[in-house]
């Protein structure tokens, strides 16, 4: 090699290494940027949402006045007035009507519920003075969390100075359905709605999808018809989800007359939505089973069906389950098709059957994000946190199943 050639080849080599370094840098930069975005999203949601998992109570001495509460029938008693009077008693200096009205707004509409429940379960409390924790309103709650806009509320400051304010975990958020009062609104209704809806989607989509995949992959002859079906399944996986919602509206509601807003209909629509995903994942999993296993079974005289159900399908199961769970995670987070079939209504009750009206988690997020009250913004972020936790859990299960059942050849 002459010197000139050597120099050329060195320059060429340097160029190649530079190209490689550049490419690595692009990759790392892309990764850093996405990580930054993700972190920003998570931190923002966490900052907004985490306070919603706590609520504030005021500790009050309440006299269960026997003239207002009848010990033989405590349920009919006017506990709201008792609580209100006990609350006003903390502020003897406030007497004007408008100021008292403002003071009243610091208590939740349901502030007396806990007290009422306590007295109903133990009527001997009537006539005694008991210490009760009463729930504060969203306005007071925000102020105490430091999220209120600007004004100061001296009444709350004085309560805090007297150590009568208590911060607790808001189990209410997981126990209640939706409500117009932010401090009472919870996600139980939406969570149950989502569980019912997704269980219908799973119960229908998984067996249908796996059966279709097994037939197409193992039994159907390859001809123009099966090619056409395959292309259409792939196309269906790419159809915008709202189209499935319109289909559900036209067929399940208008033709079959199924109830509006019901998890049954939502589940049917989501089953249609995840069916292509499950079929594609299942076919890929079936195809990944080495053909030698099937040949071995056929070689000892197993029928086609025995070979598939005794050997091929069990080996493909981890892949199928992973695909199914990922499809389910998608169904869990789907909003648009459910809007079309009326799952977007305000529903305060927790659904208990497949035909009760219900909301689902992502729709609940959508509904809350639209409300003007400041406290609902925090609730929205909290609902997103719950949604993300559930989706992470589903993905973790998918990974666990794949690891557990994976086999090597």
């Amino acid at each position, binding site marked *: 090699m002459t010197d000139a050639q050597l120099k050329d080849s060195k320059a060429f080599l340097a160029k190649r290494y530079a190209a490689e370094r550049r490419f690595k840098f692009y990759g790392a930069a892309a990764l850093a940027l996405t990580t930054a975005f993700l972190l920003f999203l998570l931190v923002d949601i966490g900052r907004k949402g985490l306070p919603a998992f706590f609520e504030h109570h005021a500790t009050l001495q309440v006299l269960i006045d026997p003239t207002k509460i009848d010990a033989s029938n405590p349920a009919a008693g006017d506990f709201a007035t008792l609580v209100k009077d006990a609350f006003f008693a903390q502020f003897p200096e406030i007497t004007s009507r408008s100021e008292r009205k403002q003071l009243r707004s610091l208590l939740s509409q349901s502030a007396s519920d806990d007290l009422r429940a306590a007295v109903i379960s133990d009527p001997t409390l009537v006539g005694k003075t008991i210490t009760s924790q009463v729930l504060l309103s969203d306005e007071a709650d925000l102020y105490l969390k430091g999220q209120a806009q600007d004004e100061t509320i001296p009444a709350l400051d004085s309560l805090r100075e007297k150590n009568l304010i208590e911060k607790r975990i808001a189990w209410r958020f997981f126990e209640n359905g939706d409500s117009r009062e932010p401090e009472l609104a919870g996600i139980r209704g939406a969570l149950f709605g989502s569980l019912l809806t997704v269980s219908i989607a799973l119960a229908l989509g998984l067996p249908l999808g796996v059966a279709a995949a097994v037939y197409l992959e193992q039994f159907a002859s390859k001809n123009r018809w099966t090619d056409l079906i395959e292309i259409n399944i792939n196309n269906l996986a790419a159809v915008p989800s709202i189209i499935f919602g319109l289909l559900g509206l036209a067929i399940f509601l208008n033709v079959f007359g199924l109830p509006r807003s019901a998890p049954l209909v939502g589940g049917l629509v989501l089953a249609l939505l995840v069916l292509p995903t499950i079929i594609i994942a299942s076919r890929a999993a079936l195809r990944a089973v080495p053909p*030698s296993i099937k*040949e071995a079974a056929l*070689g*000892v*005289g197993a029928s086609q069906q025995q070979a598939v159900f005794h050997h091929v399908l069990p080996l493909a199961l981890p892949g199928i389950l992973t695909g199914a769970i990922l499809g389910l995670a998608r169904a869990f987070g789907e909003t648009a098709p459910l809007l079309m079939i009326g799952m977007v209504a305000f529903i305060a009750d927790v659904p208990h059957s497949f035909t009760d009206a219900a909301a689902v988690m992502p729709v609940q997020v959508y509904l809350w994000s639209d409300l003007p009250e400041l406290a609902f913004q925090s609730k929205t972020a909290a609902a997103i946190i719950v949604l993300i936790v559930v989706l992470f859990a589903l993905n973790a299960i998918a990974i666990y199943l794949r690891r557990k059942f994976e*086999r090597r*050849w």
Partner: protein
Amino acid sequence: MDQIIPNSTQQIPRIMVGRDVRISARNVDIYYGEKHAIKSLSVEIPDRAVSAFIGPSGCGKSTFLRAINRMNDTIQGCRMTGDVMLDNKSIYDKDVDVVQLRSHVGMVFQKPNPFPKSIFENVAYGPRIHGLAKNKTDLEEMVVASLKKAGLFEEVKDRLHASGTGLSGGQQQRLCIARAIAVNPEVILMDEPCSALDPIATARIEELIDELRQNYCIIIVTHSMQQAARVSQLTAFFHLGTLVETGDTDEMFTSPKDKRTQDYITGRFG
């Protein structure tokens, strides 16, 4: 030794005189789509002997082997004309059940392919699906007997419930042979059974094949002429989809009649 006229209907090439014919093929043509893989092949194969199919890659020997237990049925676009007979009964007749046929004609594949289950389950699978065992002890006896016949029992008797895929390559292939003989076949087809094995495991399998020929009609497809010479009594040489020559193994390797056979055996092509 008779005069051998391959591919003629008047006189079927007979691998060896003086033995019972177990399998005979008449004018078999096999096509993969447009490809004509086997051209008008006729042959007779005797019982209780090892017959070797040799020939260069793509000559159709495996294709023809798979026609004997109708494994070609499972391949899309594979057509066949002509007939294959087992004990003078066509295996392509309408009343022949292919599942039944495969329990009479077992198969061992090129790559050891045990099921990813226990050793016991691997062998028990065949008897179980054919309902051969009356009860659990019966099944256990069958499994042990098959493993013994395949010369594997002594090595695995302490771990019958360990996974079959955890065995060495040679052991896996013997497990596959045990699995094939567990359903009491009459014929065992072996498609290059040693091509994925090391020489020691190969020797072990060849020994086994030699033992098994006392009771079975064995057909082995092999790339290795040395192997054909070692294990088989009879050899058929395939070239480009035709059966060129058949005969006694010793004779074929010492004095081949056809120029192509001679060229192949002496290593001029293939």
